[in-house]
């Protein structure tokens, strides 16, 4: 195959890659209180035995509460899960 054609194809692939990689992503379908840009944005929702995460800016106030000290299944107790920012949404990363 002609070298120019090869170069053109390679250039086109690279261009497609750039477009795909850097196209803007619409976050309008993510609830506002879950939108994030980094893991540091996300914190557990609620005090005791949390099961979900939220953007820290949406915590009205950091309350304190007394919680029972068991490792409740399905919660982030005892390192069973942690909050991360995945695709601009605060989610729980569960430990297998």
């Amino acid at each position, binding site marked *: 195959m002609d070298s120019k054609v090869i170069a053109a194809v390679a250039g086109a692939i690279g261009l497609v890659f750039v477009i795909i990689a850097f*196209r803007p992503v*619409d976050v309008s379908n993510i609830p506002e209180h879950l939108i994030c840009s980094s*893991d540091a944005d996300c914190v557990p929702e*609620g005090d005791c035995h949390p099961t979900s995460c939220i953007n820290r800016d949406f915590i009205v106030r950091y309350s*304190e509460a*007394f919680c029972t000290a068991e490792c409740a299944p399905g919660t982030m107790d005892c390192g069973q899960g942690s909050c991360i920012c995945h*695709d601009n949404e605060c989610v729980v990363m569960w430990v297998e």
Partner: protein
Amino acid sequence: MNKKLLIILAVLIILIPQVTSNDLSDKIDSEIIEEFKTEDTVSVIVVLDENAGIDINEQSVEIKDADWKTFDNEIEAVDVTYEYSAVMNGFAAEVNEQALEELEQDENVEKILYDHIYELALDTSVPLVSADDVHALQLNGVDLTGAGQTICVIDTGINYNHADLGGCLGDGCKVVGGQDIYNNDMDPVDDHGHGSHVAGIATANGTITGIAPDANLIAMKVFGADRSTGASQVLAGIDWCVNNATEFNISVITMSLSLVSGGSEIIFTSSSACDAYSDGGVVNASNSAAAQGLFVSAAAGNDGDTTGIGSPACGSNITSVGGVDDSDTVYYNRGSILDLLAPGVTINSTYYTNSDYAQMSGTSMATPHVAGAAAILNQIATIEGVTITTQQIEDALKEQGDLIADASSGLSYPRINILAAANYFIYPNLTYSENIADGSVLEPNTTTLTFTATDISGINTFWYNSIAVNVYDAYNTSTNWFVDVNWTAGEHNLTFYANDSINNIANTTLTLFVDSAPTIDDWVWNNGTGVSTTLANITIIENDTLTILVNVSDSDVYNNISYSWLIDDVEINTTEDLIYTMGLQSVGIHTLSLNVSDELNQSSTQNWNLTVSDVSAPVWSVIPNTTSDETDWSYDVSTYINNYDEDTLSYTMSISLSDFTISSVGLIEGDFSCLTSGNYTINVTASDGTTSVPSDFVVAVADSCTSGDDEDDDDDDEGSGGGGGSSGGTFDEDEEETTTEETVEENTTTEEEVEAETSSEETTDETVSTEETTDENTSDYPLGAFGAGLGEFDFSALSGNQKTASSIVVIGIVCAVCFGLLNNNHKKKGFKINFGNFTLSPAKKK
């Protein structure tokens, strides 16, 4: 019938059952066969073909094949207990042997499994802390199970209807009272399970057995089903327990809870910071309860911090409890202020539904282990009729616990050992003074043995067995007992006793050995030429033989004597008498030692000053004169010394010139260049440490400065060279002056040249700088700095176009890598960039 056919048929009849029985026996777990040896019925789990079905009747079952047709295969004596359809197709049943055989033969039955009994986890944690051993003890005829003690459980309530938790609420019940503070009513029934689980660990008494199975409970329900509550509710629970402590005999409060903010536990590394923290008053209330005599245990928290624990466990009067698993691996929060460890992983205990049990993990589960232990220790104190403090309980659990090392925090913590703590409370603690350890070897003098005895109820009496030594005095203070003994040589086994107010007796046994060291009575050296005993100085010449005869005695029973002769702490002989030849290089003063010891290592030492004198002095042969004009001149004079007795020699030198040296081995070094021509005398001295002997030689120097010109060289040729010996040679003064002037001129010239060179270097630097600029403009390398290689890369030296091109290449490589990463199944994607309402990020994977 054909004879051969009959034989074949007979063989088959014999073999087939063996084959089929082997095949069929593969269906049945061996434990079932084994159990039928002693039991009439066995619990089994029958695994059916996935398409088979069953009809369950009373005490029988019909198994149907995939077509759901039955072929008169009703099996009697099968008492089905469970039917399974979701996780497997089958059923559990109690069967007899006949039913087992019929099940075995049914083609729809794939396997028949033994219904294993799984140990309830509380049955593991109770033995781990030796609570079951304590339950087997009695004190004054009373079982040590926590009877008479009440534990206040501040939690989600207690399922008092559970059979293991008494089955009722109120007088005569295990749960003697309580309150629902959370819902503001009088029924503290558990609506979650956490509180019932905690209560069961501490006091269950039924299918499972808790730490203090005969202790009572108070249910303080301060949590709802969401297990979150405020300080006011917890405070109310603590307050109620303290107010009603006397009425209900409450001696322990247990709190399996922790202060949390934003989903994370608040961690404290010091009790003072914890006490000062504004938590709504819970820590202060807990400290107050402990100060009023209630033992307060609290959970350390579960976040896995290795430097601190949660609140209120961190309070200064509160006993904090961390968690371990069955192999004593430490989990959850810990740090320097953690008090105790207890089992807290996969603990099975009572639940909020009647007759049910659940497994839970966390320091919530560890804490009631300690609460139960405290109840038992309080029971012991009550039986002995003494009052103990909460600090004494905590100290006993700490000091008698099994130390568990935790690599993550770098610290060790005591995991409770309730039996050890109970014994510590029950029996006097009797110890002897540390300077007389068991197995000690003592001199046959008077020795005072000191004993210390303590007990929570006080020490009543201290005594010892009769011993065959002269005990000439014994006396005591309130805690120490002293026994003065005048020992005789030999082995002595002694037992000492103490008892408390209710005659619990402790004893300790000592085995002591009394022995005196052997003595060096006198000695003679070198056939009597040396005087014995009082003379500590021995003189001898080098290379001579030293002979010492000694008299050593040991009159007691331990008299197997060993000998060790040393010179300057180096052992040279291990026989009784010394016969030793001194070496040629031993001139000087040494320390000669003899150490004698018996089999119990009692020893004596005698030292002597050993003076070794020299045999002969070194002698010089003639050192030849020499010539030199060298910069790096050297001359080894050691080849001209005769050292007959091989002593270590040292050398010194004197010369009228500076910068000449002589080494320790006689090598002279110096610089004869650019010196005035003539003869230079060098005096040398060799010494063996005893005698110093001098010598000398001459070095003749011609005028031979290395930076001189031909004219100077001609002048040198006209002069006369140096002669041999110290008095030889001629010396031309005029010539010397001329030479000196020329030398000055040369030096001057040299300085100018240096300045010129400096100027030249500067010019060179400018040239280099210019050249670099030229390179930048002319682009000598194909791709700018890239072509020069990494070692020469200088981004700042690139042109604008070159920088842009290089940047695009680098970004392109980074993008390619990112694209590769984007296609991996990582949960975290690449970088993101926020632009107002839009966010640039790698596309969501579909």
